[in-house]
């Protein structure tokens, strides 16, 4: 069964602006999906439907097969956790501990369970010892992790992340990607990420959905999506830098295949170099 499914989902803001147009999307448990698209493509609007912050103008959203209604909204928000782009929008309590406890307390969990969840969530994001710190004294990367811990403490089955690496330094971004993948691998959490940083897409997702003007116009593996030049151009995105380099080498007549991650590109170049050496040797 799909954990999230949208059927002909259309959303019109203020009766005028069509932000989503007949979106059919489905995510299976444990999948890692990246939704890419330029600013204003409808990614954030789609995300806000996944946990009932926005309701469809037409069409429907199903979470574990059940349509989102006022009755099951708590269950939906417990199942699907959304981490917003700016952690300052999420973190508002005076201490990290109080902020991470906010969700579990709202769910009505007993004090000792809340304490346990806070400790576990902070441990998962490697922020043990930060419990009493004031959020405005944290770095951007730490704030992001606190925001994720605040959602993790609700033990969601799906983690939806809006531009997770925005505003982070390269080291911080890589550590966060590693952390997200770890949550998928060891906790079995389904990961859905919105981003326009194409370089991180192959690292974060096995499946890519490409959005443009409120529609999903492409859906497949990163290899398949990035191989369709027309789609990439249409959405004002670009190929990952390693893929661009390999394409340039192809144009120069070097017999390489285009790859999308650093490791794949390294293996491909090594293959060509070794083949070249054996041909000339």
């Amino acid at each position, binding site marked *: 069964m799909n954990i999230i499914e949208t059927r002909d989902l259309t959303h019109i803001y203020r009766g005028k602006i069509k932000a989503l147009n007949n979106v059919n999307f489905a995510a299976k448990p444990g999948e890692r999906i990246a939704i890419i698209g330029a600013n204003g493509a409808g990614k954030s609007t789609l995300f*806000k439907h996944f*946990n009932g*912050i926005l309701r469809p103008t037409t069409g429907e959203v199903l979470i574990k097969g059940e349509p989102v209604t006022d009755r099951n909204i*708590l269950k939906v*928000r*417990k199942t699907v*956790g*959304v981490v*917003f782009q*700016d952690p*300052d*929008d*999420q*973190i*508002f*309590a*005076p201490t990290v501990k*109080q902020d991470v406890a*906010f*969700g579990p*307390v*709202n*769910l*009505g969990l007993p004090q000792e369970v809340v304490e346990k969840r806070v400790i576990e969530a902070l441990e998962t994001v490697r922020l043990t010892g930060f419990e009493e710190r004031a*959020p*405005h004294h944290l770095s951007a990367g730490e704030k992001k992790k606190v925001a994720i811990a*605040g*959602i993790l403490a*609700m033990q969601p089955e799906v983690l939806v992340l809006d531009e997770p690496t925005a505003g982070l330094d390269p080291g911080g971004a890589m550590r966060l990607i590693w952390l997200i993948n770890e949550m998928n691998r060891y906790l079995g959490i389904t990961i859905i990420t919105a981003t326009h940083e194409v370089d991180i897409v192959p690292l974060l997702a096995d499946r890519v959905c490409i959005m443009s003007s409120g529609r999903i116009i492409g859906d497949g593996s990163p290899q398949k999506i990035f191989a369709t030049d027309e789609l990439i151009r249409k959405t004002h995105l670009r190929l990952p830098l390693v893929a661009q380099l390999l394409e340039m080498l192809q144009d120069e007549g070097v017999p390489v295949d285009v790859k999308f991650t650093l490791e794949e590109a390294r293996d491909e170049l090594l293959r060509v170099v070794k083949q070249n050496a054996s041909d000339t040797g």
Partner: protein
Amino acid sequence: MHLTLGDIERETYKKSPVHRIDGRIKILITLAIIIYAVALPRADVLNFLKLGLIEAYLLVLILFARLGFSYLVFRFMIALPFGFGIAVFQPFIRQPFFSDFTVLYTLPLGLEMTREGMLFGASIFAKFVVCITAVILLSSTTSLSDFVASARRLGLPKELALLFTMMVRYLFVFWNMLGRIRTAQKTRCFDIWNKNVTRRWTLEQIGYTISSLFIRSYEQGERTYQSMLCRGYSADAHVYVSRKKFSIPDVFVLVLTFCIIILAQISLNFL
């Protein structure tokens, strides 16, 4: 239904003959009507006719401005209880500026309803309604930025104009910020009617939200001030306001309003 800053802003961007009137004229008209309404006698039956004429004129302008009906009703509903709250006690109070009182009804607990008090209370309410209508008309047909520029053209000191300009800019920034914070809280199942948590805990969270907005506004203030300094801001800096000439319809509306006020004052005195 609820009203947001965005709803008020959307009304100000509508296109109508009233929206097109120069902001200075609208400010002057509003001030003139408020001063006239407030300056009317404390208790006089004629007040109602005079204020009724002005109110009718304002309603015609509102009709021309094509403002949304539910929007108008909601804005009145927010303001009117304040005026009503002040007016409703007046019939039972012996105001020091009246020397004679005519008791209309005697109620239990020694309460007496006087004719003078009733007239005074009703006058306050009528004045309040007219003033509120004028303010709603001004604020629904003039964008905040146009309002500041118009006030500056009318001679508002530049320090106040700068404060207003920044308030207009950051009011929306912080309104949006509050919206995003509330969305993030909803994501984590926060609801002020949630029965899973104590009322005290809910109030604490609301307090934290407000204090976090204060911290963020303080930080934003620091950043904005530094970026202003980087662009050469000093105590002598000016707020740029372009020059603008009055059009014939502008002058017509100004003259018409003053004629209506004079008409209300003079002709109704002869009744």
